[in-house]
């Protein structure tokens, strides 16, 4: 990510996720990521790691749930073990960190910011909390 885009992303994130987001390893293309804390309407907090690819924003970033670690479905099964999952909108995990499907690759474009990615992840998390309440899969709440 070039410095101009970095400044834009940082500004938008500071406006919307003030004190709840931080870039990590900016100069390491292997690990450069955004950490963002999200809070659901239930009050439950989640921390996400959004991996920023070297050619971001031309390529889609990958979003992982860092904490709570090893999220479970309503039946108690590890979501990481269920991944990838169409029903739960999950891509391949990184260890026990599940990877959220936030944008279809074909719908991704460089005018989407990390702020929007974080918001889409928040929508997924709300859907997840509804799954935990009702047992209905994420796909019931979100388009595939």
């Amino acid at each position, binding site marked *: 990510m070039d410095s*101009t*885009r970095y400044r*834009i992303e940082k500004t938008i994130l500071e406006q919307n996720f003030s004190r709840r987001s931080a870039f990590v390893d900016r100069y390491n293309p292997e690990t450069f990521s955004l950490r963002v804390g999200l809070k659901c309407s239930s009050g439950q907090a989640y921390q996400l790691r959004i991996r920023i690819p*070297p*050619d971001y*924003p*031309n*390529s*889609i970033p990958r979003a992982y749930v860092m904490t709570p670690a090893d999220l479970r479905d309503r039946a108690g099964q590890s979501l990481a073990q269920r*991944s*990838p*999952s*169409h029903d739960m*909108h*999950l*891509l*391949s995990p990184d260890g026990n960190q599940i990877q959220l*499907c936030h944008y*279809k*690759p*074909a*719908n*991704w*474009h*460089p*005018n989407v*910011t990390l702020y929007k990615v974080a918001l889409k992840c928040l929508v997924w998390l709300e859907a997840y909390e509804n799954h935990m309440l009702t047992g209905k899969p994420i796909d019931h709440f979100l388009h*595939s």
Partner: protein
Amino acid sequence: MHPLVYADESQVQALFRQVSPRRWRFKGVAYEWRGEGVFHVFARTPAVAPSGYPLGCFFAFPPEGSQPEPTEARVVQEVRAELGSAGMPFRQAVLSVFHWRNGSLAPHACLCAPDRKVACDLRYVPAHSELYSRSRGLLEVEALERKRVVIVGLGSFGSQIAIELAKAGVGRFDLLDFDRLELANLARHTGRIQDLGRFKTRVVRDAILSKNPFCEVRTFEVDINRRLPLLRQRCAGADLVISVTDDNASRFNVNHFALQTGRTALFGRAITRAAGGDVLRARPGAGPCLSCLFGQGLLQTPAEVSTIEQARRDLPAYTAPDQLQATVQVGLSSDILPITNMMVKLALVALSEGTAAGMQSVAEDLVADFYLWVNRRDLIYRAWPRMEYFYNRNSILRWYGIRTQRDPACLVCGQLISG
């Protein structure tokens, strides 16, 4: 009709420059199409592997005053002796003789076999200046020769575009793609069955050089998404960038670096089942960029998915295999050609800008930066009226210029142009 022998004029001229009283015979190689009486002779290995079957070939530049007949007999004798010493039977060879008469080389050729000699018509493959002389008046040939076009993606689109541009007289190409030609590509790609397994870049390079051996073609067998500095460098050295890949990330990377280096870029694609297609000309600062249009939803019509690998990239990882397979719905080569043809026209307009060539009237027509091609009454065009005899209403098999503007909030061109 005598058998035909084609010799590269510039190669003959190069040999002639090496002639001395002691050295006036040269060995070469000929290729024949058996039973067709056509031979192509080369003094040195050509840039592109020739077609046909190889056979012996000799060039002779007899000293002034000597007669062709004894010269040929002597050369045939030498040929036979040379092949015999190598343990090879002498079946036949093409002998091309050039006499210096009245200030020019008089060519003469014959097919020599042990028991007979058949006179041939020798024709030159013309020198550089004459190859595309027919385009003069239509195009500024000399100007086009100096233009460099970068083509990213040498699939069914890129291969057609590259060859058409070479035929129009464009002289320099950078070709970028990491794919190899596979069986499934043959129906739409310009590559031939004997090219299977080769890098598409090199298949297309050979096709370009077969049309115009004077082109300068550089190939890069790389995944540009992982070689961004190289992509930037290629864009910076280009007069025009053409992106015809099948994944959005590479299209966006091309968009980014074309904008950053101030180069016009063309993007083209077919939509699902080639029901239609679209072409974008992205002129830095003067029109919308790829991201502007994508953000406005103009490019979110599902693209044609021609391979299972492309389906895997475009769809989430959890997509079931049968659904992936169902997504692969390709059009015919003839569905693609109108789109590549439009891209070639836009390319020639861009490359001829500022010259007094005949592309001016085309440029006056092609003022839009975004074009839709409607190919078939299918998918989003299902409800369109039939073409029949009407010319004054929407129909298939036509181009539509779409009025578009830069997105003032575009984070890509807004940032790169102002910066």
